[in-house]
């Protein structure tokens, strides 16, 4: 695992603690609004949806507007409520991820290299997965992807610990 030295005071741990605080707060709210007694399948499903949104929202808010992907996600949440999960489930555009680089379509980037044309197509799928990816240039897309992945792994890590904790304390 590569541990690149940070110039700032390790922002990833403060990002994590911001996420934890927000997410736990959201869980408390959800817990309060959907009382424990109601555990019908519908309720559980609603809770699951709200928890998922809370997780993604908490992370996006913790990142604030420092990233293109977080800004895209936050504006999505503001305009449409549960659309994020809908967008994610409609990602099935694996049209030409394995086509050879010689299939040069249109090169809109500066350098006129074959590798670049192929890269354009190869990043299509990635653009669908990263929030706001459609409008990013390749450079940004790769940087945003790296950060997005880090945040996703933090989300998963924290959520796992929460689940484990409450499983053990039962």
């Amino acid at each position, binding site marked *: 695992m590569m541990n690149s030295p940070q110039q700032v005071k390790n922002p990833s741990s403060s990002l994590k603690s911001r996420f934890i605080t927000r997410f736990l707060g959201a869980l408390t709210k959800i817990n309060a609004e959907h009382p*424990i007694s109601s555990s019908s399948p519908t309720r559980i499903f609603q809770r699951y949806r709200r928890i*998922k949104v809370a997780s993604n929202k908490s992370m996006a808010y913790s990142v604030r507007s420092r990233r293109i992907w977080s800004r895209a996600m936050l504006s999505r949440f503001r305009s449409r409520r549960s659309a994020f999960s809908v967008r994610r489930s409609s990602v099935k555009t694996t049209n030409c991820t394995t086509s050879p680089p010689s299939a040069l379509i249109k090169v809109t980037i500066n350098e006129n290299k074959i*590798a670049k044309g192929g890269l354009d197509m190869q990043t299509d*799928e990635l653009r669908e997965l990263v929030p706001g990816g459609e409008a990013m*240039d390749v*450079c940004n897309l790769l940087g945003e992807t790296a950060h997005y992945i880090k945040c*996703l792994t933090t*989300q998963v890590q924290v959520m796992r610990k929460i689940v484990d*904790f*409450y499983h053990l304390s039962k």
Partner: protein
Amino acid sequence: MSGASNKITDDELNALILRLGTLLPQLNHGRHGRASSSTTKILKETCSYIRRLQKEVDDLSKRLSKCLDSMDITSSDAEFLTNLLQQ
């Protein structure tokens, strides 16, 4: 974002892509010498990794929704947070 100042060199691109590769858990480096094929592989791996992570968030949300009944977040806050933050 002006087009003129956006001159991405191949080297810079490769650097970014390699950096992405280091984040992926299951990537075999050094199998191919050609830059283009490992780029393809890294991008594909990245996509499937993101999908996997998003699915994990989804699954964990489902599990949380089930055990939310037994969760008493407010009372165990302090020690719980410490535990969480310790890693």
